[in-house]
Each structure stands twice: as C-alpha cells, then as structure tokens.
C-alpha cells in the first residue's frame, strides 16, 4: 500500500494549493466576514485577514523550494506582521506552531497533519486563553481536530478525513450562533452577542474547507 500512501499524502504543492485556496476564499468572503464582525465586533475581520493573505501570496514564491515547516512558518510570520487585531497573532500562532510540528518535512501523512493542526490549535488556545464555547475561532478549530482524530481511528482516507474535519469546522462555526461571547471584542456585548455567528470561527471554517479542497487534490 506504499504507493497509495504516497498518493494520499500531503505534498508541498498541496500545502501551497491550500494556502492559495484559503486566500481566495478570504477574498471572496471578505465582505461576509466584515458583516459578521460588524454585528458583534468592529467590522474589520474580513479586511484584516484579506490584507494578511494577500501578503502571504506575495511571499509564497520565496519558499517554493523550502520544506513544509518553513512554508508554514513564513505563512505565520506574514500573518503576524500584517494582520494585527486579535486574529493576527492567533492565526499567526496557528501557522507558526504547525510549522514547528512539520519542520524539515517534504510531505505529511494524515497523522502528521493531525498532529500539526493539534499543535497549532493548542497554541491558539494558549495565546488567546479561550476555551471551547467562548464563541471564538476555537469553536471551529477544535472540532476539526477531533474529527481528524476520529477519522484516523476509523482509518478513513486522508481526503475523507479532511472533508470531515471541514464539515466539523462548519458545524462548529454554525454552533457559535447561540453562544454568548466570553473572549475578544464580542464579549463587550454580553448577552447581545448571542444570535450571531462568530467571524473568526467562520474564517477558521474557510481555512479547513480550503484544506479539504487543496491539500490532496485527487489527480
């Protein structure tokens, strides 16, 4: 099964496709994210992430020849230094930690990917001191990691695992709607934050949907 394993693995090209797909999704959903953030925050989440992902795209050629860890670290650095706001350090941390976890690698197995994402998400939780249910991006990220764990246990294909993790993120984002925010700017609203979907959880879902689309394209 070595041949199938390789074809199912995540290549450097897959990582680049993922980042590009995320950049496109952020661009397309900029206004949507902005509207979500305007409802319970300050209306800049779309602009923030879009600024960051456009910067990332400009710098991807620099790492075309580098390993996956280096690519993800560069991605994290770019986001940290261009996004600002709450989501900049948080997404930045996610990618920096994923970069640490994948340092030197030229391809990732499902196990590698799951471990890397877990490390990234743990980093987000540590940096932001948020818990699941606080109505933040964690509410999409954490279920995505859990779904990957479950898929691994069930031995699904990597494509199916990624699809399920995207689905879990989508549900997690939707499930933020009734929640009362306890972290970030939305927490100032108290009870009034309920009834709105969290912008950061929404962009996190876009990130995992881009992963399902781009990481291991069926050829």
């Amino acid at each position, binding site marked *: 099964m070595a041949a199938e394993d390789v074809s199912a693995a995540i290549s450097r090209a897959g990582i680049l496709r993922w980042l590009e797909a995320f950049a496109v999704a952020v661009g397309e959903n900029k206004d949507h994210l*902005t509207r979500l953030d*305007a409802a319970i*925050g*300050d*209306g*800049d989440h779309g*602009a*923030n992430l879009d*600024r960051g992902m456009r910067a990332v795209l400009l710098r991807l050629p620099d790492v075309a020849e580098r390993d996956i860890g280096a690519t993800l670290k560069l991605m994290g650095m770019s986001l*940290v*230094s*261009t*996004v*600002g*706001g*709450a*989501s*900049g*350090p*948080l997404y*930045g*941390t996610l990618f920096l930690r994923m970069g640490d976890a994948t340092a030197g690698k030229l391809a990732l197995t499902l196990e590698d990917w799951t471990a890397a994402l877990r490390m990234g998400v743990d980093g987000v939780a540590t*940096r*932001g001191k948020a818990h699941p249910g606080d109505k933040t991006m964690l509410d999409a990220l954490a279920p995505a990691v859990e779904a990957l764990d479950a898929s691994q246990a069930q031995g699904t294909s990597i494509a199916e695992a990624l699809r399920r993790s995207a689905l879990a993120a989508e549900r997690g984002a939707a499930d933020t709607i009734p929640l009362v925010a*306890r*972290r*970030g*700017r939305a*927490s*100032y*609203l*108290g009870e*009034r934050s309920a009834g709105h979907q969290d912008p950061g959880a929404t962009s996190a879902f876009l990130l995992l949907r881009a992963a399902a689309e781009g990481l291991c394209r069926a050829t």
Partner: protein
Amino acid sequence: MKKLINHPDDVVDESLRGFAVAHAALVRVSFDPRYVVRADAPVRGKVGLVSGGGSGHEPMHGGFVGPGMLDAACPGAIFTSPTPDQIVAATRAVDGGAGVLHIVKNYTGDVLNFEMAADLLRADGLSVEAVLIADDVAVENSLYTAGRRGVGATVLAEKICGAAAEQRRPLVEVAELCRQVNARARSMGMALTSCTVPHVGKPTFELPDDEIEIGIGIHGEPGRRRVTLKPAAEVVALLAESVLDDLPFKRGDSALAFVNGLGGTPLCELYLVYGELTKICAARGINLARSLVGSYMTSLEMAGCSITLLKLDDDLIRLWDAPVRTAGLRWAV
C-alpha cells in the same frame, strides 16, 4: 462616506506622512514597519515607553510621543491593533538600556500583539514590562470576559509614566506607577453619532436621531444601553455617576477630570460638559485639582465624549504638572 482622504488603504500612511513633516523636530517616523519615535531616541539610561493601537484615535498615540511622554507609538490600521514586528522595532529603537514599558489598552488584539512582541523581545534578552489599561466602567469586569476596555486612563498613564521615566525612575517603578494610574482611574463614554471606518464605507452602527449610546467603546463597540437624547446635564450625570460609584470616589478625594471629545464634537460642547462635571463633583465633595478638556483619544469623526476621573496624590500631581513636549500635549517646556 465623506472624508478628506484618498484611497482607504492609504489613510494611515498618508496621515502619518503629514504628521512626520509637521513634527519633524519632535519625532522620527518609520513606515515599514510603522512606528513613531521621539527624535532623540533612544535616551540613554531612561526607561523607554512604548504604546500603540489602532489608528483613527489621533492624537493618541503618535501625538503623545516626545519628551515627558511616550518614546514610541505603533499605529495599526484604522481601529486594528499594530503587529508584533512594529512593536518589536519600536521597542528596540527606544531601548536606552533601562528597559522598556509597554502601555497596552486592554483589547484582545492589542494584548495579543504586544504579548507576542514582548515574547520575542525577552527571548532576545531585552527587559520589557507590559501594563494593561482597563478603565472603562461600561464593561462588566470579569475573569470570564476580555475584561474592561482601556480608554481615557491611557492618556493619563502615558503622561504620568512619561514624567516618571524622565526622572529616571527604574522600570519596575514606572510599571508599578502605570498600574497605580490604571487602578485609580475610571472612565465612561457616550456617542451622539457613529463613525465610518474608511474601508467599510458606511457607519459602524445606526443611531436614531433622538437616541444616544451610553457606554460606547472607542471603536464604536456598543455600550451599556441606548437612551433618548437628553440635556447635557443629564448625560454628564449618567456618565459621572457610573464613574464616581465604581472606584468609588469619596468625599474629600482630589481628582483629575479628563473630558475627552470623540472627534466630531466641538470644543465648546466639551467645555460645557466639563462645567456640568464640576457641579456634580462639587456636590460629591470631590476636588478637581487638575483637568484636561479636548479631543485626545478620538474615534474618527464620532460625535460624543468620555469622562475620566483619576484619583490624585501629590506624586501624581507633580508628575502630571511636569514638562511635556509632544504634538498633542505640551506644557511647562
């Protein structure tokens, strides 16, 4: 959207460019990464003071860079906190060997970006302290939320700590003083109108012609509640009572009153507000020993004001009166 701007993407840099030329004698400006430092930075042996935050709050923070106040300011995009690379570069530029204090308004974005920067700087052996300013009584203070927002007390902390740093007090003392100022200050704001973030192009919120928002945040975050438009005396009473009751301020206290305009409210209204505030404080037996009235921490063109009261002692009065020479605040020098 009616603004004196070119493209929304360029507002911050273009505004900063005008600022840099207008105040070339006071400050140097770096555009990539973006920060403002006093012209003579770093000052050897002096604790460096760095603050920063989203743009759109001018003169804060760039207008407070200069002798007696900040050593550097990091302006983010409009209403968006600056990034760690800005903060790292600014901190390095003002490190005079006595360590650097980060004065951080308590917003998740500001906190996280300053934390990341401090992590990087400390990893490189720099001595960095950070103090959070969280004086907005409109927000419930709780461990289970992002906590109170940093508003008017920021300006006071920057002035007072700036004076202490000028006296060559050590980093731990300046940081402790900053925490003291934060602990002794309370603020509350209100909006008559919304403001429009350039890249959004329409007002952040809608406020009917006969309503005002009590407890507004400086980025247009909703406040405690909306009430019908009232005479200034009643509005000021609403704000002042929340502020006075929170610490609480007591009969016989000496305080500094800061009436801050949010950008679109003319000075004549701010003085009128201050007049109302003096009556309320007099009735409560609070002695307003110092005052500051003007638009110092704005929210673009939002109309409205905030009131900050800081409980004074002799040291704080001396530090407040000490010379300051910045674009936005200037006296005794």
